[in-house]
């Protein structure tokens, strides 16, 4: 972790004086569940990218492909798994008792620490 500053060195009142620095705050450590990407079934519809509240879906914009997750910032909310559409056969979300390698899943949530 970066060197923490003293009370004289920081803006008062918790003010953040620069914009766009949320990226510096690694929130991935808050995660209890983690999304897992099943590349083969993905139809690259970008629903997950659209809905992820933490901008943690990584895409290859040039080739219009969903490529994975930014696990440094993903908080494991499961929204991506939930919005992943039916025609990709991915309709289950976090906590469902599906086997980790269930072929119907392209994104599913598994418990942190037990990832394949």
């Amino acid at each position, binding site marked *: 972790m970066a060197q*923490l*500053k*003293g*009370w004289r060195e*920081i*803006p*008062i*009142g*918790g*003010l*953040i*004086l*620069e*914009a766009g620095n949320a990226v510096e705050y690694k929130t991935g450590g808050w995660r209890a569940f983690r999304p897992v990407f099943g590349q083969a079934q993905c139809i690259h519809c970008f629903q997950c990218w659209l809905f992820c509240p933490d901008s943690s879906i990584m895409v290859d914009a040039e080739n219009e492909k969903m490529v994975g997750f930014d696990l440094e910032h993903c908080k494991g909310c499961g929204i991506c798994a939930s919005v992943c559409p039916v025609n990709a056969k991915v309709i289950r979300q976090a906590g469902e008792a599906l086997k980790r390698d269930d072929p119907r899943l392209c994104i599913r949530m598994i418990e942190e620490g037990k990832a394949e």
Partner: protein
Amino acid sequence: MSKYEALTGDQAVATAMRQINPDVVAAYPITPQTETVEFFAEYVANGEVTTDFICVESEHSAMSACVGASAAGARVMTATSANGLALMWEVVYIAASLRCPIVMSLVNRALSGPINIHCDHSDVMGMRDSGWIILFSENGQEAYDNIIQAVRIAEHPDVLLPVAVCQDGFITSHAMERVEVYDDADVRAFVGTYRPKWSILDVDNPKTYGPLDFYDYYYEHKRQQVEAMEHARRVILEVADEFNRKFGRNYGLFETYRLEDADVAVVVTNSTAGTAKVVVDNLRAQGLKVGLLKPRVFRPFPAKELTDALRHLKAVAVMDRSIAFGSMNNAGPLFLELTAALAIHGVHIPIADYVFGLGGRDIKPSEIESVYRDMLRVAETGRVERLVTYLSVRE
């Protein structure tokens, strides 16, 4: 040129607000503060001020609107009492933490329950540790003067804390008295223009107010609030000094009345100090060496200065208009803090607490006189018989 007007305490505050012409006022009606906001709404309707007056659906919203407006760089004022303050609670702390220099007229009223609309200090004593600067006012004149000074104190770059200006509900808020109202231009010149350092409306320099603040930095922000309170000690006196010179008054951290050569004294805030002065004069006429200390600044608490002003006495009575339930001997908050201040500064005078006037119960000169007579006895014997007395409660 200043002029003398017959004003209620609430009206005196509204007059100060008209002269200050804040950018935003957000308030919700609650007795006995309502009059202030009613008068002020009239000034808004008449075009006498250019303030954005936000009518809100509750005090929680009132204080929230104040915080938002302050973050946007506005000069912001509000007014409330008792249960209204209680409903603001969460945001009262946020206002101080986000360092919003909001000025609040707090017309002291008993907190429920049972429901009561009359004066005591249970409302303000609840907010004593919230991070607000707290000033007391004996009468409408002092409320008027304190409101004007509060703007400068709150907005000082070394302070940036909200300020609550107290006066006694009904006793002064609704009593008409002579108030010297200064020239509009003089008041405006005194308060000056607020130049916020960080405004969220400054779109070229985007910033965030009120982000999540965890164990890694929250504590440092609290430490900054301590520093701001420490700066306030100096700033309050600087502002008072300038105010006194400009408007011919005599404000400090507290007022003393015939205290210098006194043997015993009463310490009491707000309107009761006025009544106590009459008692002091009566007892002095009988040759009794009694005096009075009336705290004006309660937050930051001027422990050292109070100690120095009281150290020569043979006995001190604190009169508290609220109870800190379950505290040492179920005493009042002013007593508890003053006792600690004296002890910490090595001054050991016999001291006793007299709780009085809860829920607007009248406090008569004869009752204050009985406190002085108790203290004169204590001065002789050196012994406090009863640490806390609930004055004039029926057995």
